[in-house]
């Protein structure tokens, strides 16, 4: 028989230790986390490669297919062409010249827009119907382009390409579980679709997308205030007719106030860039 007394005595203090540790932990719950555990080689993972872009496009294309499984495309070729022209004129000024952007209109009465990694942007016909000019269309598309250019989904789901280096080849040879990649890929797609359609981006990502969109509008030559204007209008519309839907964005007032602050700090608030209302009217939806 083993003598267990030696362990029982110190174990009496374990609950006390737990309480002490937990109380300390909860007091620090909202403190900023110091990532001192990251080692030097983790810096390598921040470098983008061709394989990463390929993985992003594949990931985004799969999510886009899922979205199109839930929504029909709006059958108006001229409108699609117009939206693509506006979207690509913005995309040229984005930081993502390594991907091809695609824009499409969804036949949905929900006022919303979605973007997936790899350059796939969707906007609903209800969202377009709520717009008054081309600058507002550009504002929404710019916001979605910003999610892509800032890689919000890519970063959150840590999408990376398979390496083709010799080291990576050896790791595969040693059987370090590349086969599980497919399972994880499917799971990541599921989670990303859920995030886009139900949960929404993190508030910090939304606000960053707004800021990037503002700069993108200005650099492309659209009225930078169009995003705030549009947000203010759809706030009223969503409150009256779509109040039951779970919001996927931060409070509109927060966004508008933040946009105003950014516009002032970037000296964009007094720019008199065109809204392009007449051209937009040719494609406006009833």
């Amino acid at each position, binding site marked *: 028989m083993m003598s267990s007394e030696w362990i029982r005595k110190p174990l009496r203090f374990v609950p006390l230790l737990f309480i002490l540790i937990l109380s300390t932990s909860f007091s620090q719950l909202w403190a900023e986390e110091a990532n001192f555990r990251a080692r030097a080689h983790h810096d390598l993972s921040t470098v983008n490669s061709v394989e990463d872009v390929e993985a992003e496009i594949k990931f985004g294309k799969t999510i886009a297919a899922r979205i199109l499984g839930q929504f029909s495309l709006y059958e108006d070729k001229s409108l699609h062409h117009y939206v693509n022209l506006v979207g690509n004129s913005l995309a040229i000024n984005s930081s993502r010249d390594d991907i091809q952007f695609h824009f499409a209109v969804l036949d949905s009465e929900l006022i919303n827009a979605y973007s997936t990694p790899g350059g796939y942007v969707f906007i609903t016909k209800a969202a377009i119907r709520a717009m008054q000019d081309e600058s507002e269309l550009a504002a929404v598309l710019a916001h979605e382009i910003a999610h892509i250019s800032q890689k919000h989904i890519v970063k959150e789901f840590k999408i990376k390409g398979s390496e083709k280096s010799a080291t990576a080849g050896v790791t595969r040879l040693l059987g370090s579980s590349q086969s599980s990649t497919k399972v*994880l890929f499917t799971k990541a797609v599921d989670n990303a679709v859920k995030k886009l359609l139900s949960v929404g981006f993190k508030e910090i990502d939304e606000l960053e997308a707004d800021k990037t969109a503002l700069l993108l509008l200005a650099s492309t030559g659209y009225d930078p205030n169009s995003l705030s204007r549009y947000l203010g209008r759809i706030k009223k519309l969503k409150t009256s007719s779509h109040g039951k839907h779970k919001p996927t964005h931060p409070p509109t007032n927060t966004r508008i106030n933040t946009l105003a602050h950014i516009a002032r700090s970037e000296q964009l608030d007094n720019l008199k860039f065109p809204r392009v209302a007449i051209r937009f009217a040719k494609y406006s939806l009833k």
Partner: protein
Amino acid sequence: MRDSSLFLKQLLFVCTSIIFFHSAQADEFHYNNILVGDRASGLAGAYVAVSDDPSGLFYNPAGVVYAQTANISANMNAYTYSRTKYKSVLGGQDWIRTSSALVPNFFGITQPLGPGTLGFSYAVTDTILEDQDQTFNDIPRAGTKYTINFNNQDATNNVGPSYAVAIGNKFSIGLTLYGHFRNQQQIFNQSFDFAEESPDVYHWENTYVSLSEKGIKPILGMIFTPFDKISIGLSIQKTFLFSSKLEAQSSCAGTFLTESTAGSTCQPSEFNRSEFSNEEEREFPYIINTGFAWFATNKLMLTWSLWIYEPIHETKNPLFNTAGAIEYYFSTSFAIRIGGYTNLANTPDIKENAVNLYNEHVDIYGATLSFSHFTRTSAITFGAAGTYGSGKAQVISGNSLTQDVEYQGLTVFLSASNSF
């Protein structure tokens, strides 16, 4: 003839005791027999406060929540070699036992799930593969020949899931629930022949031993970060067996024996066969593993661990093992790890001039060295662990003679990990 008779009796004692000696050897007398995981092996197992990759599932599951990438898998293959020399066992000659095996030492995978991190791992915590063919000549006189053919396969595997959650940013807790599986198969064939005797005197004996253990090994771990760059780890584990089955078959024949030797059922001039089985479940100790790590910079990390084992094998005091290691990055692509550790015997000291119940006490000390090469999503690690130990043994059971023992071991490992 009389002298020969005494010697034969002694020799049979040796042979019989060797069988039991083998049955109880290796993992049962030491705890840190194999280091698990690539980074952890390079750090000499001082990993309880680090544990932020799949091998953390084995050392301290709480650490995997701090993994720097979401999904990681790791795989390690190790070649282990050991050489144990028992000095002056047979007629003043040394008895040397060697074991070598190439084993998939560890596989583990982690991925975020819900509020925490889910993991699954497989670890070979001990393995022996002895395949010996040794002949002792001229003991104690010219022409005497004693031959051993010995094969011993003994492996202990742990496999199971883990889950860990962070509570705040200073504390994490995790649980690994391993299934414990040990399988041993041993075939021992021995014969001796007194060539100069007339009529011919010989003895032959064959023994087969099979041992199977099944159980569970929960590992509860926690990691606490009291200060910036300092991590403190603690884990508690114990193996609970729910089945154990030992079966032995022994056959022997000889022409010389005039009486049955203790522990032997062999009778002269006839073929003898016997069977033995035992389902007694051995008890494992509680093991507490604690330590700290200092992440000085993103290139330098120092770590230290202490293991405390509940006393077993009729020892009165807990056993302590310790390990310490340094990790240094020459660049973002290359890292070196150097460590040292102890693997002390869990048996009482061998007493001179007395019959000892546990017939070996060898304290082992090890040093580790590994190099890793990193790319963005992959890492390859090559390393080695060298061990040396010395102590006492009492190979001849029921006899108060003791022998000096010298142990040397080497493990070379190659591992790969992927994040995706």
